[in-house]
């Protein structure tokens, strides 16, 4: 069994899907695809597919949850029952409850919530297909949805995981690399503040590996950040082209 298992890093130094250690999966982002939401975004990162909607700022319901000096942020990270190999129960799992909390905390520092007292901003992240890195891709897409909703942000949040497989540090793990690998460290980064708003780790890393992994995470997040800005602009380029065509 052990012998027949496919090696995660080939002899040529490439990963099972042919990527170099510091190479991201193909990423496609789309902004403003849902008609009802105030802001929305969709991301495909490798085989992971996630859709995010943002509602708000809107009235708090029930009212007593509101804060008199700022808006509250509500966040739900949820996986569709059909997003995984085995059907996932639609009821929120303990993992989803924890992730909803830390994703909310990753966004609190960038939202100018003090502009909207007694109101709330809702972030709904739905994982439609899961192939590793869904909390990070979810954060990347949720940033776009918040921006699309016109909510004032200090910056976009870009997110990517770094991990270790077979002794080699790699970025943007897919599901197999996450499950079989020796470590997984999701990071969310705010370029304008040069700070980290989400950091988790499981597995085992030495001090040197940890330092290197953080560096790789920052670089990967910066590449995702450029793509995010491009995706936001693209929506308006398309709108402009549509208008010009009509004229």
């Amino acid at each position, binding site marked *: 069994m052990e012998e027949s298992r496919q090696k995660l890093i080939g002899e040529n130094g490439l990963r099972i899907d042919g990527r170099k250690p510091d190479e991201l999966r193909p990423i496609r982002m789309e902004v403003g695809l849902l008609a009802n939401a105030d802001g929305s975004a969709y991301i495909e990162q490798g085989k992971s597919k996630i859709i995010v909607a943002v509602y708000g700022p809107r009235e708090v319901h029930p009212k007593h*949850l509101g*804060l008199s000096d700022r808006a*509250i*942020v*509500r*966040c*739900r990270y949820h996986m569709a029952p059909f997003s995984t190999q085995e059907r996932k129960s639609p009821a929120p799992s*303990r*993992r989803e*409850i*924890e992730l*909803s*909390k*830390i*994703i*909310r*905390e990753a966004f*609190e*520092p960038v939202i100018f*919530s003090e502009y909207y007292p007694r109101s709330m901003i809702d972030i709904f992240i739905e994982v439609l297909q899961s192939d590793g890195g869904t909390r990070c891709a979810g954060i990347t897409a949720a940033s776009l949805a918040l921006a699309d909703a016109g909510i004032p942000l200090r910056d976009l949040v870009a997110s990517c995981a770094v991990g270790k497989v077979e002794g080699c540090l790699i970025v943007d793990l897919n599901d197999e690399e996450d499950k079989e690998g020796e470590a997984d*460290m999701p990071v969310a980064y*705010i370029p304008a*503040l*040069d*700070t*980290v*708003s*989400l*950091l*988790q*780790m*499981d*597995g*085992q*890393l*030495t*001090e040197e590996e*940890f*330092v290197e992994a*953080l560096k790789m995470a*920052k670089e990967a997040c910066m590449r995702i950040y450029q793509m995010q800005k491009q995706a936001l602009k693209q929506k308006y380029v398309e709108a402009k082209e549509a208008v010009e065509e009509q004229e």
Partner: protein
Amino acid sequence: MSITPQTEPLTKIKSKQMIEFLKLGKRLDGRSLTEYRDVKIEAGVIGKAEGSAQVSLGNTRVLVGIKVETGPPYSDTPNMGVLTVNAELLPLAHEIFEPGPPDENSIELARVVDRSLRESKALDLESLIIIPGKLAYVVFVDIYILNHDGNLFDASEYAAISGLMNAKLPVVEVEGEEGKPTGDFKELPVRDCPVSITIAKIDEALLVDPTLEEETMATAKITITTTKDGKICAIQKSGGGTFTFEEIMEAQKIARSKAAEVRSLIPGWRG
């Protein structure tokens, strides 16, 4: 769904004083920034449990009970025993805790402790299989918060690992596909001693083992668990603030050195 919590702020005079103290590298209770409160660990406090430990960290008090049963292993790990961690933020521990099903805070607490135990491979799960694919030992770690004065992550983690080191495994006799306890006990196979260190950020200051008052003032916390060899095996940043890369590096260094100190206090750990 996770919602921005309503937190009762500290009085202005107290928060001002705390900030002024921190600027001088001091804290309201007289500790230095890298000093833990008194760590007291008592193992074997619940006779009916296979293992148990009570930890006090200043006024924070946590009780952990370990129960061991037999049951089917997980289908994706048919050759391993099962480890389950659960945490209860008891209403008797603080006025802010309410009875009811576990909320996001108790789930996060349980999952952070679970990660420390699991990722350090402290418990040798491979030796806890009885019949591969059919029958395994199931180790329940139940965290009971008795008094909340901050830093529940660390107090719970110390109680959990101390409880595991204190635990006895009921020997079972295999009859067909069932396990029957023989009445004998052996030691639970614990081969590492993960120690988590929590560092809070208030203003620009980083301080270890925050009290509840300090947690109220902190913008963010980071919990870093290291193994006996000094490898990092779990990290959790929590709270709605951020850390710079320099602060993360600093926190990681503090965690490494403080963990060695705390590890020497874990009863039953013989390096």
